[in-house]
C-alpha cells in the first residue's frame, strides 16, 4: 500500500478539527471533533508504521518524505495527541469557562497539525518553517489561562525560541551556499540531496553550519544551555498542553537534529561534531539534575525532567551506532507516554490541592487513590527504574556509549541519573508520605465523569510503558535496525 492516503489522514484530520472548532464554536462539539481527529491520526500513524518500512517514499513533488524514522516519531507524537485530547475533555470542562473552549480545541488541533508536519517534511527550508509554526501556535496555548505568569511564560517562549531558531535558518543558508558550489545555483535542498553532496562539502563551512543548526533546533528541543524557555512554558500551560509540548513537540525538533547528525557524518570531520552533541547532552543532564533536586514547583519539576530526557536522547543519538539509535528511539516513545502520564498526574494534583507548590501537596494517595497511585508509579518509571520502558532504553544507551569514543559521557550520565533518581523521588516522598497535616479540601469536587476522563488517559499511558519495560518486542528491534541503516550508521 502507498503511504499517500495515510499521510493525508494524518494531516487533514487535525485541519478539519481546527476548522470545525472555529465554525461550530460549541464546546462539546469541539471536544468531540478533537478526540475524533486524534483517534484518526493515531490509527493512521499505527498503520503507517509497517508501510514506512518499505520506504523512504517521496510524495508531493519531493516536499513530503515518509521514512521509518519519521513514522516512529509520528507514532510518539500521535500517541501523545490522543492522550492529551482525552485528558483535555475532563481537565478543561472543570475549568468552568465554556465560552473559550472552542478556541482551545482549535489551537490544540492546529498545534497537533504543525507537530505532525515536521517529521514528514523533506525540504529542509520547509521543515524549518514547520518548526517555526509550532512555536507560533503553541505560544497561545501556553498563555491560554491569561494569568500574569502564563503570559510571561508565553512571551519568553516565543522570543527565546524565535531567536534560537533563526540561527538554524542561518545554518541552513550556509548549507545551501556550500552545496550550491556543486549543485548549481538553484536546487531543492532536501535531506537526500544534502546527504549525497555531503562528502564534497567544505569541512570548515559544514562544521559552522552544523553547529548553527544544532544550536537552533537544540533551542527548540530544550537542550541546555538553550533550555531556559522550557520550564516556564511547560509549567504555565494547561496540563494537556504541557504533555503535548513535552511529549510531542520536542520529538519533532529532535528529528531535525538526528537528520543533520547523519548528514554531518558523511562530511569527513572526524569525531568533533558527535563530541559536541554528546557534550551538550551531558550538560543538559547536569543542569536538569541541579534544578530537579532544588525544585519547589511540581510542574517545573516535570519540565526539568524533560530537559533531562532530551539530554539522554541526545546522548543516545550522539553515541550513534545501531545500539545508540535503538536506545534513543525506544526512549523517545517511552518518554512521550511517561511524561504525558506525569503531567496528567500533576494536573490532577493541581485540581485537588489548588497549588503547584510541592510543599502544599500532601497525602496524595488519600486525596486521589487511583490517580495518585498511577502518578507515583509513573514517577518511579520516569527516573529510569525497572520494570519500566525507560530503564531498558537508558541501559541500551549506556551500552552504546561504552563502545564508542565518548565513554566518559557514560560515567557522567550514570552519576547524574542517580542524582536525579534520588532528587526526583524525594519530592514524591514528601508529597505522598510527608509528615504535615493534610490540607482541607476546598472548591468544588470534580464530577464522576470528569474523574473518569482524568484517570483513563493515565491508564492508557501507564500500561504501555509497563509492557515495554517487561518486553522489548523483536519487531521494534528490526524497526530500529532499519532506521539505523537508513541513517548510515548501522552498516
Amino acid at each position: 500500500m502507498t503511504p499517500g492516503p495515510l499521510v493525508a489522514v494524518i494531516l487533514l484530520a487535525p485541519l478539519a478539527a481546527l476548522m470545525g472548532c472555529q465554525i461550530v464554536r460549541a464546546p462539546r462539539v469541539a471536544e468531540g471533533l478533537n478526540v475524533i481527529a486524534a483517534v484518526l491520526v493515531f490509527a493512521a500513524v499505527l498503520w503507517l508504521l509497517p508501510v514506512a518500512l518499505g520506504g523512504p517514499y517521496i510524495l508531493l513533488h519531493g516536499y513530503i518524505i515518509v521514512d521509518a524514522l519519521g513514522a516512529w516519531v509520528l507514532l510518539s507524537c500521535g500517541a501523545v495527541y490522543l492522550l492529551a485530547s482525552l485528558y483535555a475533555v475532563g481537565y478543561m470542562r472543570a475549568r468552568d469557562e465554556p465560552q473559550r473552549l472552542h478556541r482551545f480545541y482549535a489551537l490544540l488541533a492546529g498545534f497537533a497539525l504543525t507537530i505532525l508536519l515536521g517529521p514528514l517534511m523533506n525540504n529542509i527550508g520547509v521543515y524549518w518553517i514547520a518548526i517555526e509554526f509550532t512555536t507560533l501556535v503553541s505560544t497561545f496555548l501556553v498563555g491560554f489561562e491569561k494569568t500574569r505568569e502564563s503570559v510571561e511564560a508565553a512571551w519568553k517562549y516565543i522570543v527565546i525560541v524565535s531567536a534560537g531558531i533563526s540561527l538554524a535558518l542561518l545554518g541552513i543558508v550556509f548549507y545551501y551556499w556550500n552545496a550550491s558550489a556543486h549543485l548549481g545555483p538553484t536546487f531543492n535542498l532536501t535531506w537526500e540531496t544534502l546527504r549525497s553532496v555531503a562528502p564534497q562539502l567544505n569541512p570548515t563551512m559544514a562544521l559552522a553550519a552544523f553547529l548553527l543548526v544544532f544550536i537552533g533546533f537544540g533551542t527548540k528541543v530544550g537542550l541546555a544551555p538553550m533550555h531556559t524557555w522550557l520550564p516556564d512554558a511547560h509549567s504555565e500551560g494547561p496540563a494537556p498542553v504541557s504533555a503535548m509540548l513535552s511529549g510531542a513537540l520536542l520529538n519533532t525538533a529532535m528529528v531535525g537534529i538526528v537528520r543533520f547528525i547523519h548528514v554531518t557524518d558523511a562530511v569527513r570531520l572526524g569525531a568533533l561534531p558527535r563530541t559536541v552533541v554528546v557534550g551538550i547532552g551531558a550538560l543538559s543532564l547536569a543542569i536538569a539534575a541541579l534544578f530537579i533536586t532544588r525544585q519547589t514547583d511540581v510542574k517545573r519539576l516535570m519540565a526539568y525532567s524533560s530537559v533531562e530526557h532530551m539530554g539522554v536522547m541526545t546522548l543516545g543519538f550522539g553515541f550513534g551506532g545501531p545500539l545508540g539509535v535503538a536506545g534513543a528511539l525506544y526512549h523517545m516513545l517511552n518518554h512521550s507516554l511517561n511524561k504525558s502520564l506525569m503531567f496528567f498526574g500533576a494536573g490532577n494534583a493541581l485540581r485537588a490541592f489548588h497549588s503547584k507548590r510541592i510543599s502544599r501537596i500532601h497525602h496524595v494517595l488519600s486525596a486521589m487513590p487511583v490517580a495518585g497511585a498511577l502518578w507515583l508509579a509513573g514517577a518511579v518509571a520516569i527516573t529510569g527504574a525497572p520494570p519500566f520502558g525507560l530503564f531498558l532504553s537508558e541501559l541500551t544507551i549506556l551500552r552504546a556509549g561504552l563502545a564508542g569514543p565518548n565513554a566518559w559521557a557514560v560515567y557522567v550520565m550514570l552519576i547524574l541519573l542517580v542524582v536525579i533518581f534520588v532528587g526526583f523521588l524525594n519530592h514524591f516522598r514528601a508529597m505522598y508520605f510527608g509528615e504535615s497535616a493534610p490540607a482541607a479540601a476546598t472548591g468544588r469536587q470534580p464530577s464522576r465523569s470528569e474523574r473518569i476522563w482524568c484517570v483513563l488517559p493515565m491508564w492508557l499511558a501507564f500500561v504501555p510503558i509497563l509492557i515495554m519495560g517487561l518486553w522489548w518486542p523483536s519487531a521494534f528491534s528490526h524497526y530500529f535496525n532499519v532506521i539505523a541503516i537508513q541513517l548510515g550508521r548501522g552498516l
Partner: protein
Amino acid sequence: MFAAPLPPLAGSLFNLLAIVSLLLAFVMLGSRWLNAYLGAFAVQSWLIAVLSATVAHYGGYPELYGIAALTALFRGLVLPYLLLRITRRLNVDRELHERLSPSASLVVGGLLVMFAFVVANHLSTALGLGGTVAVLALTAMLSMTLIGFLLLVVRREVVSQILALLVIENGIFLGSQILVPGMPLLIELVILFDLLVAVACFGVLARYLVVHAGTTSSRELTRLVG
C-alpha cells in the same frame, strides 16, 4: 553565488547596500526612541528590496524582481505599519531601562562587527572566495545577526525585542540574497509569510502582556525563575 564574474559596478552596489544596511542596525543600537528603530528598520528593508532587484538584474535571476517587490511591500510597509500600531497601542515611545546605554552598545556592536569579519573572512577563504563580494555579504549577515542578539539582550521594551528579532531576520535575508540568490522561490515566499504571521502573533501577545501582566517591559517579567 554568481555563475559569471560580476561587473565592477554591481560589486560596488552590493557592497554599498550591505554596508548601509549594517549602518542602519547601528542607528538602532544608538537610539532610545522606538520610532527611530522603526524608521531604521523600514529603510533597511527598502535597501534589501533594492539589493534583491540589483541581484536580479546583474545575476540573471528574474524571479528576484518579484521577491524585491514583495520585500518592499511586506518588510518595508506592512511590518513597520503593524509595529507602529503596536507601539501606539502600548503607548510607549522610548526605552527607559536598557541594560546597556546606547553609546556603550555602539562600542560592543563595533566589536561584534570585527568578530563577524574575522569569521566571514575565514569561511570565505576556506571556500576559496576570499576577496570577493562574499566576504562583505557574509560579514553583514553575521554582524546583523549578532547585533540583533545584542539588541535582544540589552533592550527591554517588547517592541524593541520584536525589532531585534526582525533585524536578525533581515540580516539573514540580506546575506542569502547575495550568497544564495538561486534559493527556490517558494521558500522565500513562505519565509516572508511566516514573518508576517510571527509579527501578528507578537502583537497579540504584547497586548496580553499589557492587559494581564500590566507591563510593556521584560524587566517586569521576573515571576518565573528556578
